[in-house]
């Protein structure tokens, strides 16, 4: 385990429209802060040492009997291991049901937003951003699975209908992911496909990376359900 320190290893802005990636090493924490509120950051996660293993939405939901992500939850891979734990969350609800915005959908919604006209304020979309970022690690279209949408709430009613919930993320709200495996994190800070705002919204996000204290035996993510205790045990066995 790395030395415990509160110093930021990374502390940098993620502009609206921008994508980002990093291998978050086991024991490191990534903090995403939604600086101005109403943010949306799409994310994909992979085992950095063996990217065939990746974030699995159904396994994450059914192990914890949840349909949203918040503090105390963990993000499972398809191999029964914990990629990351959500150790802090001042927002309360992060989506993993409703996917990415495509270039076609973005054009239909916001009209033309090309680079020629807007330079680096052009209308980037989450799918193309993540496709570019995937390519930097030898990954591609075949590696898209259901993603995470940080700071986004899409509620499900009793009939199963989905609805975008406005005002889910207040200015300054943040989420912290602690890597339990060496995790390749890919991010796109771009509008969510269900965002009803008529104009393209570029929202500022701040990213911080630091080391986490060692995971205690009574860590809240670990003990939040028996499934997670087994998930942590299987993850520890992998690194033994």
């Amino acid at each position, binding site marked *: 385990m790395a030395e415990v320190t509160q110093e930021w290893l990374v502390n940098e802005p993620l502009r609206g429209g921008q994508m980002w990636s990093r291998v978050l090493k086991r024991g490191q924490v990534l903090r995403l802060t939604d600086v101005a509120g109403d943010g949306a950051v799409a994310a994909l996660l992979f085992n950095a040492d063996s990217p*065939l293993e990746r974030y*699995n*939405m*159904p*396994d994450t*939901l*059914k*192990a914890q*009997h*949840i*349909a*949203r992500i918040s503090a105390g939850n963990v993000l*499972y891979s*398809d*191999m*029964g*291991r914990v990629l990351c734990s959500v150790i802090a969350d001042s927002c309360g*609800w992060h989506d993993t*049901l*409703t*996917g*990415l915005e*495509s270039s*076609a*959908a973005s054009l239909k919604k916001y009209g033309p937003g090309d680079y020629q006209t807007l330079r680096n304020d052009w209308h980037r979309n989450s799918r193309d951003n993540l496709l570019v970022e995937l390519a930097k690690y030898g990954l*591609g*279209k*075949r*590696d*898209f*699975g*259901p*993603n995470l949408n940080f700071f986004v709430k899409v*509620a*499900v*009613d*009793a*009939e*199963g*209908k*989905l*609805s975008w919930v406005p005002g889910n993320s207040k200015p300054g709200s943040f989420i912290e992911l602690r890597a339990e495996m060496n995790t390749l994190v890919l991010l796109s800070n771009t509008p969510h*496909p*269900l965002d009803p705002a008529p104009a393209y919204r570029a929202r500022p996000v701040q990213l911080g990376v630091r080391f986490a204290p060692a995971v205690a035996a009574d860590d809240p993510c670990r003990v939040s359900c028996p*499934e997670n205790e*087994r*998930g942590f*045990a*299987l993850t520890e066995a992998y690194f033994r």
Partner: protein
Amino acid sequence: MALSESSLDPKQAIFDTVLGSGLGFSHIVKRGETFRIVDLEGNQAVDTLFYDAADPSERYSAVDTMRTQGGIYLSTGSALMSTEGRVMLRITADTCGRHDTLGGACAAESNQVRYAIDKKYMHSCRDNFLLEIQQRRPQLSLRDLTANINFFMNVPVSPEGELHFDDGISAPGRYVEMRAESDVIVLISNCPQLNNPCNGYNPTPVRLLVWSA
């Protein structure tokens, strides 16, 4: 929950087989053809994925399907969307009323998390998918397995964001039918799960039929 029946006659089907529980299956359903899955004995989860036959990097997308139709359950009228935002198939008849696309497939590894570390030996859908593609669909690999449909499975979500695995709402002889909008590979695991009520703790065979366009 609206139920809708089909007028297609099984005697006219161009493909008709029974798939036992715990088995994998794959088949190319051509554009315009209709594919039916019959839950012969009731409460049998049928884990299903679709790939574009010409370019399997385009495949069924649970998240695009749910978002596009604005709801999490699949039934008559649901358009099964691809990762490229195209309609791959449309559900044209459904006598069950609700199908899941959140619960994913069981796997040896996730069974350890969900039930007990010593459940790893138990047969699983992911192993069925992997054996089927290794033997018959060499263009596909583990990399291509994504969040699937569970036909006949009931996984309700509460407004508070809780997810439950409930008893099935299917019954013997109920079926779901879908028409392909382009040539697709259908990949199925007839689920062997014994640890939750998705199969009523008794996995059973299903019947698979195809009608020409």
